[in-house]
C-alpha cells in the first residue's frame, strides 16, 4: 500500500493513496518523512524561495534516505512567467534562481545532476475560444496549446481549417499512425486534436491572465553530462546507464528552452512529427517511462469523465490508476522525487518516496509526501 502524508501546516493526515481512506502512519520511514514535511512548509508556487524549497527538501532526503537516484522538478519560474507581469530582468532573475537551486543541490549532495529544460515560454497572444463549435472542445488549465475535439461537424472542421490561430487539426487515426499505436491504444485519445499557433492559447479553465505560455518546442536542452540523446525518450536509458557509476539526479527546469539554458547542452527531440510536448504531465511521463505517453496523457482527454465518486487515487489529480514502467520502478536502489509541480510527481516518477507541493491553481494547500516503498529504508 502506498501512503500519502498530507501536510496542511502543523496538521497532518495520512491516507491510503489509492482509496484516500485515513491510515495510521507508523514505522521509521513514515515518521522520518512526516517529520521532514512538517518542518518544511511549502512557500507557494510563485514565492521567490519556491525552488529553494525543492533543493532543501531534496537535500534533507538525501541525508536521511541516502538515495541513488533523485527526480526533481524546479517550476517556480514557470508559474511566475506564466502568471505574473515580469520585466525581462525579473524573468531572468527567476530563471537564474532555478539554476542556482539546481547548482546548490548538486554541490551539497555530490550527485551528478542531469538538467533538462522543458521548453521556452513565449508571450501570450489573444485567447482562442472554440466553444462555439458544434462539437465538444476540451482543454485544460495547464495544457493551453492542445485541445481535444469530439463530435466535430463538417462545418467545425472547415471552420478550424480556416481559423487564423489554428496550426493543426489531427484525427485520432493520424495520431496513432504518427506514434505507431494500434486502435486499442487510442482509447484515451480525442477524436481530433487541435493545436494552436505560437503565442495563442485555448481559453477556458484558466481564471488568471496568462502573460506567457509554453510554446511546445520541437527540441529541448539536456545538459551534456548525459551525453547526446536524440529524443526525450532516450533520457531514461542514458540515466540508467549513468546510475551504474554515479549517484544521479534528473532536474527538470520548467519553462526554459535552449535560448536561456546556461549550461553546456545537447538538444533532443521533444516529441514526434508535428507533436511536441507542453511542459507537464505528458512530458514528465515520457521522460520517466522512456516512451511516448500521448496515448495515456494528452491535453484533450475528457478527464472529468473519470471524476466519479469511486475514482481511485483521489489525491492524485486526474490519475485514476498508477502508471507502470516508470523510472523509479526500474531502479532497484533507493530513489526519491521532489518537486514543485503539484500532485503528479508521485505518480509519474515511481520513486520510493515523492515529496511535492499540494497546490491547486496556485493556491497553496501544503505538501504531500507519498511513500511507495518502505522496505528499502535503513533508518536515519
Amino acid at each position, binding site marked *: 500500500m502506498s501512503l500519502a502524508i498530507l501536510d496542511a501546516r502543523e496538521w497532518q493526515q495520512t491516507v491510503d493513496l489509492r482509496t484516500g481512506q485515513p491510515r495510521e502512519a507508523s514505522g521509521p520511514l513514515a515518521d522520518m518523512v512526516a517529520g521532514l514535511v512538517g518542518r518544511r512548509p511549502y512557500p507557494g508556487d510563485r514565492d521567490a524561495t519556491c525552488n529553494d524549497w525543492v533543493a532543501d527538501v531534496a537535500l534533507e532526503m538525501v541525508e536521511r534516505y541516502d538515495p541513488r537516484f533523485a527526480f526533481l522538478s524546479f517550476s517556480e519560474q514557470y508559474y511566475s512567467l506564466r502568471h505574473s507581469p515580469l520585466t525581462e530582468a525579473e524573468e531572468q532573475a527567476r530563471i537564474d534562481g532555478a539554476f542556482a537551486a539546481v547548482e546548490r543541490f548538486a554541490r551539497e549532495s555530490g550527485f551528478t545532476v542531469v538538467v533538462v529544460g522543458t521548453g521556452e515560454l513565449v508571450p501570450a497572444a489573444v485567447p482562442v475560444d472554440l466553444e462555439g463549435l458544434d462539437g465538444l472542445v476540451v482543454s485544460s488549465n495547464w495544457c493551453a496549446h492542445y485541445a481535444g475535439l469530439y463530435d466535430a461537424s463538417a462545418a467545425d472542421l472547415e471552420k478550424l481549417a480556416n481559423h487564423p490561430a489554428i496550426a493543426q487539426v489531427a484525427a485520432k487515426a493520424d495520431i496513432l499512425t504518427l506514434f505507431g499505436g494500434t486502435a486499442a491504444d487510442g482509447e484515451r485519445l480525442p477524436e481530433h486534436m487541435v493545436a494552436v499557433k505560437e503565442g495563442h492559447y485555448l*481559453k477556458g*479553465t484558466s481564471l488568471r491572465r496568462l502573460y506567457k505560455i509554453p510554446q511546445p518546442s520541437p527540441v529541448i536542452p539536456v545538459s551534456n553530462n548525459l551525453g547526446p540523446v536524440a529524443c526525450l525518450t532516450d533520457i531514461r536509458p542514458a540515466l540508467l546507464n549513468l546510475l551504474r557509476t554515479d549517484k544521479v539526479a534528473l532536474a527538470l527546469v520548467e519553462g526554459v528552452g535552449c535560448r536561456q539554458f546556461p549550461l553546456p547542452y545537447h538538444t533532443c527531440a521533444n516529441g514526434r512529427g508535428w507533436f511536441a510536448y507542453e511542459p507537464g504531465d505528458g512530458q514528465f511521463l515520457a521522460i520517466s517511462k522512456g516512451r511516448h505517453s500521448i496515448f495515456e496523457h494528452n491535453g484533450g482527454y475528457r478527464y472529468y469523465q473519470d471524476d466519479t465518486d469511486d475514482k481511485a487515487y483521489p489525491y492524485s489529480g486526474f490519475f485514476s490508476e498508477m502508471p507502470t514502467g516508470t523510472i523509479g520502478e526500474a531502479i532497484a536502489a533507493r530513489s526519491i522525487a521532489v518537486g514543485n509541480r503539484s500532485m503528479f510527481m508521485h505518480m509519474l516518477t515511481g520513486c520510493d518516496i515523492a515529496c511535492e507541493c499540494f497546490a491547486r491553481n496556485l493556491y497553496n494547500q501544503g505538501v504531500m509526501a507519498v511513500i511507495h516503498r518502505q522496505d528499502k529504508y535503513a533508518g536515519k
Partner: protein
Amino acid sequence: MIRCDVCERRCPLGPDTTGYCRMYHAPRGQVEERFPDRWCAYATARMETIPFYHAWPGARCLVVGTTGCNFDCRYCANAEVVKVDPAGQQDVMLDVSPEDLVAVARKRGCRAIVFSVNEPTVSLPTLERVAAVAKTAGLVMGCLTNGYATPEGTARLGAIFDCVNVSLKGLSPQFCRNYLGVPDVGPILRNIQALARTTHVEVTTPVIEGVNSHELGEMVDFLAGVGPDVAWHAFRLLPEYKMRQEDYPSVAAVGAQVEAAARGKLNYVYFHNFIGSRWVNTLCPGCGEAVIERHSLGCGGDRLQAVHLDGTACPRCGAAVALRGDPDPATAKEACS
C-alpha cells in the same frame, strides 16, 4: 444620475459614471451592464467543489465567473480576476451568449451551472438571461455570493438560483470595515434569511484566528435561528491578496473552536478548505452515522466519495437528511456522446 439598486452600496450611476464594482453604468437612465455575456472562464467540476454539500450531491457542473466585485476582502482568493479594472480584462474575456453557455454545459454532461469566481450581483442581468435558458434546458443554477444585495437584488438572486452559498464572513462593524470594505453585516443577515425562504442556502465562513473566530458562536446562533438544517462550512482561511504574508490559521485550534461553537445547534457543520480535512462527512442528525463521505483537497477541490442513504434517510436510524436534489452521482450523460 441614478442610484444602482442591485447591492447595498447603492452607487450613483450615469452615462460616464460607473459604480464601485465598475460593472454597471446608466447611459439611458437605467442600470445597465457594461460587459454583458462576458466570462472570465468556465470549467467542469462537481457541486462539492463550490462547495455545495447538500444540493445535488456529486452532480457535474459548469463553473463560470465574470469579473468585478462589490467587496474589498483583504483575503480575496481571486484578486487577479476580481480586483482589476473589468475594462482592462476584456481582451481575455470570453464572449458567450446564454444559449451557447447552456450548450457548453449540456455538451459536457453538466447538471448545473454554478457562478463562483466573483460576485453574481455584479452580473445580474446576464445571469438572469442564462437562468432563463438553463431552466428551459432543465439545468440547475447555483452561486456563491457575499449576500450584500439589496432586497430587490436578493429577490432576483432567489428567483434565479436553485442553490446559493452565502459567505457570512464576520459580524462586527469593525471587521466588516477592515476586512470586507463595507460598513456592516446587517444586509447579509437579512438576505440569508430572505434567501432561505425561497431557495436552498448553505453558508460559508472563512475563519481568521483572533479576528473573527470569537464571533463563531454568535454566527451559529444566527444560523440556527434561520434553521438548524442550514449547512455551515467553516473555512480555514487561505491567506491571499493583502493577507499573503500572514500565517496560516491553526487547523487544530480553529477546528476546536468550530466544534465548540456549533455543538448541538446546527445539524450539518463542516470545517475544510485544506487537504485531508476530517470534517467533511455528513453525519446523520439522528444517530451520528456518516451518511455522505467526502475527500477534502482544499480550495475548490472537495469531492464526493460515497453516499449511504435510503433515499434521503439515514439507513441506520431512518432520520431525514436535508438534501436538495437527487443524491445520485451518476449525472447526466454528455449530450453529444
